[in-house]
């Protein structure tokens, strides 16, 4: 087939290039620009090379934040994924209650992040919060502003409350796509409940679960608003995750250079993990698609 060569067609792509340029490339390049320069104010900049990157890689502060972040994401995934699957398995398959559960499950997903943070901030307060007050009355020494364990527990429970629905809804969609014949065949083969889960439900959910895990990982890895509203990163630095630390550095201390280097590395870590997930997922698809 003869293809018509028409270089003018490039003009059709131009609007997208401009849009992406202004919304992504240029801001990112500004960050890159800051990351290799230093300033003493007055808009005077000096070339700093890779110093900031070296600094940040040696900075205990960043490694601690990264460590906390990984622990947080790990705990979130370890709770939300099994819990979401469990909820999905126990949701009604059809009828009024199925719709009811779906609406109920989506509610937390619709609440803005800082509202979620505010809700839990108040909910956990010892003086007026329902949770904090009740715990105090029951004799439990709970205070998320002073106790590290309590702060972590509050932030984790809050995230579980906010986002388990997402995993559950995705898992539910996966479950709904399994034809009845599979369950019938399993009954005839006398498979136990566990085997039905292990050999029918889990393999059929694998695709959506990968997406759920990816979404939950990315989201929890970038979490900012909710812990910021509830604990402000405290007590001390106990709940200072990467984003919170980054904002403190960039806006609180106005250390633009290190913050820029930090955010670039942050970005690369996320990119790397996304790539790994993407590769794993497409390989799963390939196995399916033969």
């Amino acid at each position, binding site marked *: 087939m003869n293809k018509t060569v028409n270089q003018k067609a490039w003009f059709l792509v131009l609007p997208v290039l401009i849009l992406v340029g202004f919304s992504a490339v240029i801001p990112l390049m500004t960050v890159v620009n800051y990351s290799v320069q230093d300033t003493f104010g007055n808009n005077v900049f000096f070339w700093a090379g890779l110093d900031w990157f070296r600094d940040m890689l040696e900075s205990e502060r960043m490694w601690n934040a990264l460590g906390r972040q990984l622990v947080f994401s790990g705990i979130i995934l370890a709770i939300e994924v099994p819990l979401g699957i469990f909820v999905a398995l126990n949701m009604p398959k059809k009828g009024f209650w199925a719709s009811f559960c779906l609406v109920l499950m989506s509610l937390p997903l619709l609440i803005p992040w800082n509202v979620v943070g505010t809700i839990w901030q108040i909910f956990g307060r010892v003086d007026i919060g329902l949770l904090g007050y009740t715990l105090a009355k029951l004799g439990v020494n709970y205070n998320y502003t002073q106790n590290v364990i309590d702060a972590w527990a509050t932030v984790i429970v809050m995230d579980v409350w906010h986002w388990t629905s997402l995993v559950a809804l995705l898992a539910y969609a996966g479950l709904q796509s399994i034809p009845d014949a599979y369950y019938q065949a399993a009954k*005839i083969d006398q498979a136990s409940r566990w085997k039905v889960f292990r050999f029918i439900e889990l393999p059929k959910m694998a695709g959506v679960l990968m997406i759920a895990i990816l979404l939950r990982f990315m989201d929890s890895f970038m979490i900012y608003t909710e812990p910021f509203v509830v604990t402000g990163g405290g007590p001390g630095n106990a709940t200072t995750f990467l984003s919170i630390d980054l904002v403190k550095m960039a806006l609180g201390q106005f250390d633009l250079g290190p913050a820029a280097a930090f955010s670039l590395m942050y970005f690369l870590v996320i990119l790397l993990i996304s790539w790994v997930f993407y590769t794993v997922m497409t390989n799963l698809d390939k196995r*399916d698609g033969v």
Partner: protein
Amino acid sequence: MAKITLDNLAHSYLKHPKSDDDWALKELNHDWVDGEAYALLGSSGCGKSTLLNIISGLLRPSRGRILFDGRDVTDAPTAERNIAQVFQFPVVYDTMSVGDNLAFPLKNRGADPKYIAERVNSIAAMIGMEDQLKRKARGLTADAKQKISLGRGMVREDVNALLFDEPLTVIDPHMKWELRTQLKQLHHDFGHTMIYVTHDQTEALTFADKVVVMFDGRVVQIGTPQELFERPAHTFVGFFIGSPGMNLFEAEVSGTTATVRGVTVPLGDSYAPVAGQVQIGVRPEFVRLHAGGEGLPARITRVEDVGRHKIVRLEVGGTTANAILDEGTPVPAGADRVSFDAEAINVYADEWRVAPGTAQGRAA
């Protein structure tokens, strides 16, 4: 192995069925004789699969009982009934190997590993997948997957019955023939009670000892292929079985003759007066064509040569009809009359066959 009895069985998918149409399966009494091969034949949506799922226990009937060797199992779960069932679309456990798939029903029942290996090997040989036992089931073609499903259905030797729900729909034609032959062989060797649901008459007639024809939620006839051919109990059977199906003509019947559009047609038997909408049915194989003489006026619209025989499409008094001529027989020149073999004519009142010599009623 067991005799399966359906006692006043009926099923509706609605909670409160009102009219007759609400019943997916109308009241039914039947014994499935131990060790026979049955085909359940009917068009889509006639209740075949419903009946099958009731027998296997996947569905609880709204009314009536189901008995295995006289024991009421209406409320017994599927596992307790010890039945094997193969579904229309392949069900395989993707993450398991082919061999593990075949072994699954036996493993779940805690069978001896040596016995399992033995059975898996013989079933694999039967479905022609010996060399793929180690392969993962994921990514196999649909017919390979269906062969695994079939194999999984047959791996247990002690089942009460083997149920097949249109299992060969997704299989290639040449493989279809082979698998069907193997199923027959299996039936011959082990004598399982087999119920085979299909909408393909060739499949039904070649597979089964007895064919159960269903129409609109009702069993309209149970019989050997020959009975279905010679004495269809319902016009649907006449029409559905045979290619082309039975010719039907509005008629008035009295004694040993029928009158079709003013022409007298001799019958093979004597009939008591018949009420209702009366039709006579005659298979194309028993329609004779000739020029002039006795019989109904007819016009040939088309002749189709299908190899073994010729199908002559006719127009008889405003309705279409068919005749079959042997390959060697030429279409008579100037043929404008049809007559029928008197012995091969069946009389129907309101769709149901009338037995000769009796008053109106359903045929035995």
